[in-house]
């Protein structure tokens, strides 16, 4: 078990220079707050929807390199996708975290770099935090609500 199995350079890059990390978003449709009390990770995610697609998504919060990097890669993979497609991609990532081969490796973009994390069960929930926040934000939007707080553990 070498640490490099998990912390690929691509992950560290996202961690060091996260994409779409911001405390606010203009014209946001939904804001959700997710936390993983077992690790102490906290994440705010904001979503702007245009034409039933992810127009913009930003995140902010505190967490380990895996949770921060995964959220960063997630934003890059879903911006521009319509909501249904983004949910589908989320499910693909979730399955990959449970050991499956990703069906949409190209669409996950840098997200595929997290495949190695599946071998470290305790870190899986870190990698999923941003994706689960996204899923919740979309579902909250579809329910017609604008904010949601979830304390969860995958």
């Amino acid at each position: 078990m070498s640490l490099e199995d998990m912390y690929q350079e691509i992950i560290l890059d996202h961690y060091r220079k996260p994409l779409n990390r911001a405390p606010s978003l203009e014209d946001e449709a939904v804001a959700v707050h997710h936390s993983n009390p077992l690790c102490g990770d906290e994440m705010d995610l904001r979503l702007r929807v245009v034409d039933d697609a992810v127009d913009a998504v930003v995140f902010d919060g505190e967490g380990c390199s895996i949770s921060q990097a995964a959220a960063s890669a997630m934003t890059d993979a879903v911006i521009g996708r319509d909501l249904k497609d983004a949910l589908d991609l989320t499910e693909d990532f979730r399955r990959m975290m449970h050991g499956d081969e990703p069906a949409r490796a190209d669409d996950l973009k840098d997200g595929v770099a997290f495949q190695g994390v599946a071998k470290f069960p305790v870190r899986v929930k870190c990698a999923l935090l941003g994706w689960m926040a996204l899923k919740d934000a979309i579902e909250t939007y579809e329910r017609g609500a604008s904010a949601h707080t979830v304390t969860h553990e995958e």
Partner: protein
Amino acid sequence: MAFDVPALRKEFPTLQREIDGHRLVYLDSGASSQTPRVVLDAMDRYYSWSRSNVHRGVYQLAEEATDLYEGARAKLATFLDADPRGVVFTKNATEGCNLVAYSWVRRQLGPGDALLTTVMEHHANHVPFTTAANELGFEVRHVPLTDDGQLDLDAARELVADGKVRFLAAVHVSNVLGTINDVAELAGVVREANPDAKVHIDGAQAVPHLPVSFRELDVDFYAITGHKMLGPTGIGALIARPELLESMEPFLTGGDMIRDVTLEGATWNDIPHKFEAGTPMIAEAAGLGAAVDLLTDLGMDAVREHEVDMAAGLLDAVGGIDGVTIHGPSDPALRGAAVSFAVDGVHPHDVGAMLGSKGVCVRVGHHCTKPLMRCLGLTATARASAYVYNDRDDLEPLVDGIEAAKTFFAR
């Protein structure tokens, strides 16, 4: 130091292991200690020679099993300077705290009453009581911390002043801060305001590391757990005043804890059996007995002396790293050898993962003390905790790993 650590270390099989070519440096005894061969042998002897159920057997194996089980109770009682009739075996410390919550607190406290606890409790000594409070409508009050991570006894005095506090639940040694609380004094504060108040102490992190006399502490209940004191998993104990146990209704019911049963109801067996329902942890008791023997041989004063030395070493070595902050008392004499720390700009998970990859085992997270974490404004810490098989040679890999994490995760 009265014992030879490198020689002792040889007695712990897992410590002989290597991780990716690194010597295993186990600094997570606060979560669970290693188990020495003598303990494994004691369990193996039961399974391989006397395997049978205890109590009421009329054949030799069953007599032997009963002797092993009751003998372990006697050993533990001697070790903790307690009456064996007040030693109830449980599966872990958590069950002990729940026993107290169900059989005493839930049957005694109600609206108008208050329970005193502290902000540094482990969830095991917190959730059973707050859950009861929320269901039964009594109040819960919290002793706060002083700046250096001690319990604020002046604040405690104010909290009990109205005489409503009927119960105290407090931790003896904090698993996060390492603080050794003066629980006898805290108990005194509570009893001064209400002489009938009962006192329950969570000794999970104390008994493995310090000499503890139940009689001298003069408290009512004291919960411990085997797997942190060189013993096996699956066993702990609640130590209690026998007369108090006698006055209490049982918690778990079933076989072995009854005197008589009819279709309509039941009467209870003598203590401590009244509180031990069903087939007990027989092999585990035998193992715990052997662990107690080993700790007795090492001498708890020597164990404590060794840990003061390790605490000093950890505070110096880890505290000396640039950008590292240590939580809890800075004086080794006031604390155990569990040392929580934060590394500037590196999340504890990443620190732990880096250390793990180099064979250094530390715990990261909230350590089952979320209220304390919130008090400290933290979400997680990394914690290195030392025990009898660690020595100062273990500090270098720890420091190197922390330095490596700083470099690797630098933004």
